[in-house]
């Protein structure tokens, strides 16, 4: 059985984790950092991801994509009122947002796939084996299109996504395993871009979700924006300059807002300092925690209504909750903790790192799927009601929200006109009465044999699988034959598009590898140039003039090769230089050895 990894694909940061000796661990990078910023930047050397891409936010904002999770499974109309906040260019094709980066356009799943690939690479380097299977987490309140988009991202990244699991439930798995938690718990998950609340019952290794609720468009990002608006307004009043017109400075303001917000979770006051455009100086101000909290209050209040709804749907009151667990970076805010404590009447806790706990839980679920952990089982629910459009634009509900998944419903269809050969079916998700107020998931045409009206009987099965993703099948009840259904997603990539993107990603993978090799070769060449130059300066007098000249010539040839776009000649020139400087290094070593031995007795040397 090959290893299955767990991935937390976050709005701001992403992590990858695996199971080791029955415990989940997050994969760190060389510097011990576990989080990969979910940022992708297009540079002159190709696409880069993570920490290095984050540095490009202020350098080339229009070519640096962040918070792409907000666009998963969405059309342009869904994000219309926040377009001004993003410096990169968004368009739409076939109901799917596209992000313009240089000459090419990318769908959100493609951008997410780049983050996934970076995580995959990191795990492969750390574990020394290739990774092809993963469990990926999504916000519990993600709808079908958003889940499908996440699965597509995995496919494009060359990962077989064995399971999509909900972030709060993943967190509960980590808690259940490490803290042996039992009873009824509420998981309050407030992250960078999304909010979820899940109520679970933990009993003898079964994790039964009773209800879930949330808002997939509410997170720390929204708090940053409030601060950004505040600062921009003040800068306009003070310096008569509109920062909105300077995308790179907008990003500086946004990053400063985020930094100050995080700082105010620890301190009572923080200093804001932003360099202004056109060399007109800096904007500085003090911001107190109280000021931040009065701004943040309305956003935090918006998390409480979903909590009450979840309690009601679970048939519980706050008194029935034994434990409240906090997940997500935004729960570090003291005000969030206060409000949660007030609502549930209990001190919430986060014994496990709120940034890592979701990835850890995903690794536990991965271990369950690979047969490693057998005593734990997660029984999750579908967050939204599923239905179909009926006469008069009304939605008829087939599977209610908070139904345990897998869940299925069957519906019998017939014809109203003699010889009718098809029935159009429109699938929806949401809690409202009218079709127009719910989310359109997909449409398809049911094929019906031409018969008198009312005679055909086609049974359609709507099955929500353990990933929370809908599968539709149809059977002709008269013949018993099943028919394949070609579902056209309303806000998603078609199968053909996903396939094309997988193909492209393999094609571009070669370019990506080249870009990476080039960067590495240049770094190595720089290091070699520096040390050789130093040696030559220090010990050049110990070797012949011709030999020194040979080294100088090799140095300049490597410097020239380094500017090329092919890593191979760089490596070749590096070998040349190493060869030319071989004797220099030996001589230098001898010399330094001699010096260190001078004045010492033979017995000391031994």
């Amino acid at each position, binding site marked *: 059985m090959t290893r299955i990894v767990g991935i937390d694909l976050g709005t701001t940061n992403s992590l990858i984790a695996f199971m080791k000796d029955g415990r989940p661990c997050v994969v760190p990078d060389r510097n011990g950092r576990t989080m990969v910023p979910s940022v992708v930047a297009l540079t002159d050397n190709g696409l880069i991801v993570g920490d290095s891409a984050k540095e490009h936010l202020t350098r080339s904002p229009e070519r640096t994509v962040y918070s792409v999770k907000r666009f998963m499974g969405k059309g342009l109309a869904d994000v219309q009122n926040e377009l001004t906040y993003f410096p990169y260019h968004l368009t739409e094709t076939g109901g799917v947002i596209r992000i313009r980066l240089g000459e090419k356009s990318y769908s959100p799943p493609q951008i997410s796939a780049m983050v996934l690939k970076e995580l995959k690479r990191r795990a492969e380097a750390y574990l020394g084996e290739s990774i092809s299977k993963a469990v990926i987490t999504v916000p519990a309140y993600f709808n079908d299109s958003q889940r499908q988009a996440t699965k597509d991202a995995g496919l494009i990244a060359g990962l077989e996504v064995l399971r999509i699991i909900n972030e709060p439930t993943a967190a509960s798995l980590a808690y259940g395993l490490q803290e042996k938690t039992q009873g009824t718990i509420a998981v309050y998950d407030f992250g960078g871009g999304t909010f979820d609340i899940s109520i679970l019952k933990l009993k003898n290794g079964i994790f039964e979700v009773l209800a879930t609720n949330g808002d997939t468009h509410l997170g720390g990002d929204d708090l940053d924006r409030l601060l950004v608006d505040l600062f921009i307004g003040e800068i306009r009043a003070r310096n008569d300059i509109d920062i909105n017109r300077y995308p790179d400075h907008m990003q500086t303001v946004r990053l400063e807002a985020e930094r100050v917000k995080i700082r105010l979770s620890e301190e009572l006051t923080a200093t804001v300092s932003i360099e202004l455009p056109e060399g007109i100086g800096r904007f500085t101000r003090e911001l107190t925690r109280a000021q931040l909290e009065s701004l943040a209050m309305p956003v935090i209040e918006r998390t409480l209504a979903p909590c009450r709804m979840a309690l009601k749907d679970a048939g519980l009151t706050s008194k029935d909750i034994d434990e409240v667990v906090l997940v997500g970076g935004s729960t570090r805010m003291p005000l969030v903790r206060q409000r949660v404590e007030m609502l549930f009447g209990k001190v919430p806790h986060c014994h496990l790192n709120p940034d890592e706990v979701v990835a850890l839980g995903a690794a536990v679920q991965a271990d*369950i*799927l690979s047969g490693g952990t057998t005593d734990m*089982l997660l029984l999750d629910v579908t967050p939204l009601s599923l239905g179909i459009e009926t006469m008069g634009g009304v939605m008829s509900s087939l599977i209610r929200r908070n*139904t345990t998944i*897998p869940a299925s419903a069957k519906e019998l269809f017939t014809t109203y006109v003699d010889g009718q050969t098809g029935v159009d079916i429109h699938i929806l998700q949401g809690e409202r009465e009218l079709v127009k107020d719910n989310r359109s998931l997909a449409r398809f045409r049911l094929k019906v044999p031409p018969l008198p009206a009312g005679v055909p009987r086609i049974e359609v099965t709507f099955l929500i699988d*353990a990933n929370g993703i809908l599968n539709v099948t149809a059977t002709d009840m008269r013949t018993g034959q099943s028919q394949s259904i070609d579902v056209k997603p309303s806000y998603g990539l078609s199968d053909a598009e996903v396939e094309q993107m997988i193909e492209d990603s393999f094609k571009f993978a070669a370019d990506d590898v080249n870009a990476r090799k080039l960067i590495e070769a240049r770094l190595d060449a720089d290091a070699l140039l520096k040390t050789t130059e130093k040696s030559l300066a220090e010990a050049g007098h110990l070797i012949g003039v011709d030999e020194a000249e040979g080294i100088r010539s090799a140095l300049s040839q490597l410097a020239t090769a380094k500017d090329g776009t092919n890593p191979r000649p760089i490596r070749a020139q590096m070998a040349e230089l190493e060869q030319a400087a071989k004797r220099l290094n030996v001589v230098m070593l001898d010399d330094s050895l001699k010096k260190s031995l001078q004045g010492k007795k033979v017995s000391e040397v031994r």
Partner: protein
Amino acid sequence: MARSMCWHCQSAVTGEYFCERCVKVQPVSKETDYFTCLGFPRRLTLDPKQLEAKFYELSRTFHPDFYQTKTPAEQTISLGNAAVLNTAYRTLRDPIQRAEYLLGLETGSVKDIRTSPPADLFEEILELQDTLEEYRSSERDSQEGQKLRTVLETEQRGLEQRKQEMEAQLQRLFTEWDQLQDRGEATSQTRAERDRLLKQMRDLLSNRTYVTSIVSDLAATIA
């Protein structure tokens, strides 16, 4: 619960959910009712703790998580079985849904249960509908509006009280039904008794649904 012949090795299946010869999971038959699926007799008073324990046990047996390393055919069966199990548990867990389901099994389709107002409340409910209309078209803060609101609040309390009485009465019928089933006699007298209980339960359930929808309508209007 299982079919009589294994889909995989075609040997006769005598085990409950698995073929004894090739140990492959067997699909839950379409004819299996939810009581049988969860291994309970067709009774209306079930112990929620026992029901939950059985649901958890069967979830461990069927959940797709435990079939990831098995063949695609077994995965499909596990997915289907888990979906049936979840529906069965959801239906039987709630006493009202459980009774409606049993009525459907005993007397035909559940969808035949129409909601109807309790006969003795007919006049009162007609009047209530009028008051509701009046309230909807009145100024909420006016004296008239507030007076109507008080009337509606009293009505709501009264109907909620009535709903509780109906549920208590249903509970008594459920116990009677179970006792009749436990005796297991097949005389003409018990058959008549059975039909009487089924009819009473059906009427009460349909009245209860009606009152429930009126109450939630009321609550939404005056909220």
